[in-house]
C-alpha cells in the first residue's frame, strides 16, 4: 500500500497462481508476464464444439489453468509479432466463459461488463476477469515478445494463438469474491 492509499501494481506471472488470484481485488492494477492465449467469437464456438464432440469438459490445446485474452490482433508490423493487439468486448464471450472457467480457465482478459453468470463462475472457481484499455493496441503490442498459432488458422485474426507477453498492463475487473471494477466507477 502506498502513502496515498493506492495499492501498488501487482506483478503476476503466467500461468497464474490461484492462491495469488484470491488476494487480488477489483480495480487493482497488475502486470502480466508469460503466455496468454487469444481467442474470440468464432474461436469460442469452435472450442465449445470440440469439447461437445469429445463428450467431456477437458480443455484441449493445453488451456487448463491458462488465461484467455479476448483479442484479434493485426498482422506483424514494425518488427513486432503484431502491429496492434488489444481487448475486444468480453460480454460476447459470456455464453462460453462459465463453462470454460469450470473446465479450468484461470482468467479472461477483455473490456466491458460481464454477465452475472460469469461473475458467479469467477467466485465458484476462484477465477478472475481482467480488463485492459481498449484502443491502446499499439501500446499493448509492444508488450508482446512472441506468438504462435495453435489452432483455427482458417479463422484469420480469430485463430487460437499462444502469445508471450512481458509487463502487460491490466486492472482486475472481477475478483474471486465477485467484486466488479465497473461498480467502483
Amino acid at each position, binding site marked *: 500500500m502506498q502513502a496515498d492509499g*493506492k495499492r501498488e501494481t501487482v506483478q503476476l506471472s503466467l500461468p497464474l497462481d490461484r492462491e495469488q488470484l484470491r488476494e487480488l481485488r477489483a*480495480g487493482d*492494477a497488475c502486470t502480466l508476464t508469460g503466455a496468454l492465449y487469444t481467442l474470440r467469437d*468464432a474461436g469460442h464456438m469452435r472450442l465449445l464444439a470440440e469439447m461437445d464432440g469429445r463428450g467431456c469438459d477437458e480443455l484441449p490445446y493445453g488451456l487448463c489453468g491458462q488465461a484467455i485474452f479476448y*483479442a*484479434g*490482433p*493485426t*498482422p*506483424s*508490423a*514494425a518488427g*513486432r509479432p*503484431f*502491429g*496492434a*493487439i*488489444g481487448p*475486444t*468486448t468480453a*460480454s460476447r464471450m459470456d455464453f462460453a466463459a462459465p463453462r470454460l472457467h469450470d473446465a479450468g480457465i484461470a482468467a479472461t482478459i477483455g*473490456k*466491458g*461488463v460481464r454477465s452475472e453468470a460469469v461473475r458467479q463462475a469467477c467466485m465458484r472457481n476462484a477465477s478472475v476477469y481482467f*480488463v485492459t*484499455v*481498449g*484502443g*491502446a*493496441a*499499439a*501500446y499493448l*503490442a*509492444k508488450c508482446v515478445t512472441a506468438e504462435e498459432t495453435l489452432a483455427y488458422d*482458417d*479463422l*484469420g*485474426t*480469430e485463430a487460437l494463438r499462444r502469445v508471450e507477453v512481458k509487463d502487460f*498492463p491490466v*486492472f482486475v475487473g472481477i475478483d474471486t469474491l465477485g467484486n466488479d*471494477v*465497473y461498480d*467502483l*466507477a
Partner: protein
Amino acid sequence: MESAVEAALLELAFDLPADIEKGLRAALEREANPRAAEALRLLVENARIAREDRVAICQDTGSVWVCLEIGPDVMVQGDVLDGVNAAVARAYDVGRLRKSLVRDALFDRANTGDNTPAFSEIHTSPREGARLHVMCKGGGSDNASRVLMLTPSAGKQGIVDAVLTCVREKAANACPPLVIGVGIGATFDKVAGLAKMALMRPLDVPAEDERTAAFEEELLRAVNETGIGAAALGGVTTALGVRVKTAPCHIAALPLAINMGCSAMRRKTYEL
C-alpha cells in the same frame, strides 16, 4: 478515387485525427481518478507509437465506410465507387491491418480475407464540389449503438434520457472516452445515416445551427456527469464530444439513432 481512398485508409489507420488526440490530452490533464488517468496516459502514448512506428492505432482497424458527396456542378458515372473495394484490399494488405469482414452476416461467416466489402454510398449536396467522407469503424463501438423510434411528445428530454441510457448500458463496451453521433429525424432507415454523418464533424468545428450546438453541449455535460470515465474506470471524461444532426420527419415520428464512436474515432473528410 481508388488512390484517394487507399491513402485515406492508411492515414486513418496510423494517424489519430488531431482533434481526437487533442481531446485525449485535455482529458488526461483534468483527470484526477488514478485508473482513468492511467488509461488516458496509455491512449495518448498509444497515438504516438502508432504515428511514429506506422502501426495500427487499434487492432480493430474497422469496417470501411466511404461516402462520396457531390454538388450540383459535379457529374460522375454510376460506377464511380467501383474501385473502392480494390483500394480497401490494397490498403489493408500494405498497411498490415486486420481483416475483420465476413462474407455474410448469417449464412457464411467466413472471413473475406481482405477487409472487403466497403460500405459505400453517394450523397448529393447543394454545396458545390465533391468531398470524400471516410470512416474506419470499430465493431465494439458500433455494437453499442442503437436506433429508437420515439414519440414526438418525448421531445428533447426523451432524447437526453435515451442517450444516457445507452451510455450507461454500453459505454464500457465502446472504448470511452467516446465520440457520440446522434441522428434525429428522417425515417427508420435514414436516421442511422444521420448519426454516422454527425460523427464526421471534427470536435473543434461547432455546429452551424446554434440550437444544435447548445444541445450538443447539454448532452455532453449529461454524459460526463455519469462518471463512467475513460475505459469506464471512472472519472470526468466519458465522452470527448457529442455530435448531433437533425432532419425533417413524419408528424407521428421522432426517430433517434445513437452511433457510438470510440476513443480511436478514425474519420476524415477530404475535398476532392
